[in-house]
């Protein structure tokens, strides 16, 4: 038989089976149960996709399996949740990070001059080391006497306790500006020292053209202005953010999470992953260690407790809306869809998943960056020969992947309990999704995520209805993965190597 007809026949067969299965389940479960299970399946699928999208993006270009992805998902949730309920921590830390960033961003300006210096070989070797040590010292001094925990822990309410008060009521007075300014200043100095060290003074093998510095000055200058601003408003800002409209605040926390994820991903890629590209297995181990560190850091800052993020007002009012218009008007917490009651926040998660999918598709197929990434997957050497900085593209891709994870995290935060292990189950499912869909294929990731979500939701439904073991639903995703891998090792949408 002609392979094309064979493929077509198999496709028709699978489609027919699928339709029959859906019709069978529909007839068996009845409309109401079917629709509500369908929506919980879609929600789960969206959540899986949010994790899998970043994983598959990173794997596709860099062949890096990021085992810290679940932790980054969790970190995104924590950052967004902090901004939404208790911005003291964000505003307390902002001057430090911004000042440090401003210092580091000076690198492209000073590099051309530093590498042109004529210094002895010994000094060349010693200078970066000395600068790194000094930078570390400055960093430590900047935090001496600064109580991070009290900023992070201000009036945190765990999900287990019910008392919810004004989050800022317990806020202890912060340091006066007259002494506080020294901290961001030290951070800036630390960043500058790192800029000096990383530009390798006197090293003639390095290359950096002397271009007009006008454009390069923009970034550090902007960061410095932001530092000054955030230093001034570090106490008052939290309150004004909390007084904001809840929906706006939620939108802002999503933006903040994504931005944080992007910067965090870029920093991780440049400092930790880039030196390890020559040893791919070690990247995997590194991300494993990284996930430990992130998880423990979060537990250190916010205690190993489970928190509940309240839903934004658009999804919070009790009552059932009969139509989407009514929901948007009243902000009801549930909505009636063909007789089934569906929480409106689930609709938001589904919409977020689909929006992410469209965004990824758009970026990958319609923009210049996407073109470069796709070319980089096929032949990185050739792309480099074309004059594109593949290293920088790698950084951007990793940062994008982490930003997607953070977006998923904050999107899921009002829906899932916020706790240090919240990302881990989703990471496992995300990895399975990526394998089912084919590594590096984002369409595959979407289809795989939806298949897994449906399998979980309907598995749970049937387990409950037929009083089977819930282990069946839990194991169903693994079973699907094993079947897919053994019949089509490259995944549903993966290309054969």
């Amino acid at each position, binding site marked *: 038989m002609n392979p094309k007809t064979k493929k077509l026949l198999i496709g028709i067969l699978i489609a027919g089976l699928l339709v029959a299965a859906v019709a069978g389940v529909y007839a068996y479960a009845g409309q109401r149960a079917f629709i509500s299970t369908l929506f919980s399946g879609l929600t789960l699928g969206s959540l899986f996709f949010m994790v899998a999208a970043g994983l598959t993006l990173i794997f596709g270009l860099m062949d890096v399996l990021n085992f810290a992805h679940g932790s980054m998902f969790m970190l995104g949730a924590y950052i967004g949740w902090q901004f939404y309920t208790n911005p003291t921590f964000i505003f307390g830390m902002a001057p430090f990070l911004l000042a440090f960033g401003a210092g580091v961003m000076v690198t492209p300006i000073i590099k051309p001059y530093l590498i042109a210096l004529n210094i002895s070989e010994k000094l060349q070797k010693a200078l970066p080391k000395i600068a790194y040590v000094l930078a570390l010292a400055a960093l430590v001094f900047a935090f001496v006497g600064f109580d991070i925990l009290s900023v992070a822990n201000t009036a945190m309410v765990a999900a287990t306790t019910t008392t919810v008060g004004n989050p800022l009521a317990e806020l202890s007075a912060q340091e006066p500006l007259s002494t506080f300014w020294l901290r961001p200043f030290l951070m800036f100095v630390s960043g500058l020292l790192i800029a000096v060290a990383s530009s390798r003074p006197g090293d003639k093998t390095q290359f950096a053209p002397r271009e007009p510095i006008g454009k390069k000055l923009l970034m550090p200058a902007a960061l410095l202005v932001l530092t000054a601003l955030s230093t001034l408003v570090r106490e008052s800002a939290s309150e004004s953010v909390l007084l904001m409209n809840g929906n706006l605040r939620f939108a802002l926390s999503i933006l903040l999470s994504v931005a944080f994820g992007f910067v965090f991903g870029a920093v991780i890629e440049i400092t930790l992953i880039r030196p390890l590209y020559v*040893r791919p297995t070690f990247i995997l*181990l590194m991300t*494993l*260690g990284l996930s*430990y560190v992130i998880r423990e850091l979060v537990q250190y800052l916010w205690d190993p407790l489970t928190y509940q993020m309240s839903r934004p007002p658009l999804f919070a009012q009790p009552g059932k809306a009969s139509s989407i218009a009514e929901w948007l008007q009243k902000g009801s917490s549930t909505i009636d869809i063909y007789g089934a009651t569906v929480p409106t926040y689930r609709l938001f998660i589904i919409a977020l998943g689909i929006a992410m999918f469209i965004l990824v598709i758009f970026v990958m197929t319609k923009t210049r960056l996407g073109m470069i990434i796709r070319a980089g997957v096929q032949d990185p050497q050739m792309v480099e020969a074309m004059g594109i900085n593949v290293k920088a593209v790698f950084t951007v891709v990793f940062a994008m992947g982490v930003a997607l994870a953070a977006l998923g995290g904050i999107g899921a935060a009002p829906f899932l309990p916020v706790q240090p292990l919240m990302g881990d189950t989703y990471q496992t499912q995300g990895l399975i999704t990526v394998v089912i869909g084919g590594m590096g294929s984002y369409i595959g990731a979407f289809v795989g995520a939806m298949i897994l979500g449906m399998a979980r939701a309907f598995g749970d439904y049937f387990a409950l209805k037929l009083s089977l073991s819930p282990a069946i639903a839990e194991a169903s995703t*693994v079973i699907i993965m094993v079947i897919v*891998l053994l019949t089509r090792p490259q995944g549903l949408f993966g290309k054969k190597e």
Partner: protein
Amino acid sequence: MAEKPVTQKAVKKPMKVKEVGFLVFIALMALLPFVLNLITGTGLNEGVTKFWQGQLIAFFIMAVFAMSYDLLIGFGGILSFGHAASFGGGAYAFGLLMKHWAPNFVKENPIMLGNTDLTMLVVLLVVLLVVLLVSVAVGLLFAVTSMRLKGTYFAMITLALSTALFIIIKSTDLHEWTGADEGLHGISLPVWLNPTQNRLTVYFITLAFLCVSYLLLRRFVNSPTGRVIVANRENEDRMRMIGYNPVTYRTIAFVVASIFAGLAGMFFSIWNMSATPTMISAVTTVNALIMTIMGGMGTLIGPIFGAAISQIIQQFFYTWFGARWPLIFGVLFILIVMFLPYGIVGTWRLQKGNLREGWKRLLRLFTTKSEAEAPESGQKPPSM
């Protein structure tokens, strides 16, 4: 896998040093409980002495498990996240038989040889046999899946398989057999094998287990078969060209590693008198992975070192750094991955010459000042 193999070299002279080190290790470990007893004077089965025996028992068992994992990742170049399946499989096979089968059997069919009761011995032998069979079966299962998949995909399917086993073991339907989430507790053991009553016996049994495993694995790694497994890691296509079937040798590696892991699991369930779902989950595999990486991949002594370090870390980091000790541990792990990619033993072997050179220079620095300047320019200072 690692591009520079750090394998054991069959050079004649260092072999001798290694033997001496090995014997010293055995002697030290064998004497330790008695020395501790002399110092503290609390008795062999009491207090500090007993505590340290317990620590060392766990170390011996985990060292064998880490060595068996290193056989896969270090020597075979196979990244598997499902190695705990063998470990937990052995533990559960032992636990289930000892809890649900052995007591009845002992009661109903006493086997006597003259006046001595051999029932327990027969039971233990049968259980050992079953543990071996289960381990071989698990090893074969992973070997079969490795036939179709490579690299990352294989790592993923092993993760999935071990997750599936984990889900099965802790499912509530099997509660009366496996104890579901809480695990299998209260395994009945004969008095002489009971770690709370007769810890010293268990101590020496596990010490012997480690030594025998080490010798067997060393023999295996240095045998022609072991060499082919290493070659398979380096270049599979070339191996096939020469006429070795990579699948056969991978299967051998899987089965051998699985047997040792299964036995380690069995001893671990003797030591804890329980078998828990965690033993079968990916966390346990990752622990072995961390031990192997810390000690040095592709060496047999490395995982033993790694197991010792990880045991120390688990014991003392909590008292030193409080509840958030994994933070320090994670940072340490990242640093090792970044700067000591061959682990402690591997880096030591690579840098041995360098270190010796540096040591000589240091000595020269103290003896005569003028000579010290001369060799400065050429040599790189040791980075350890």
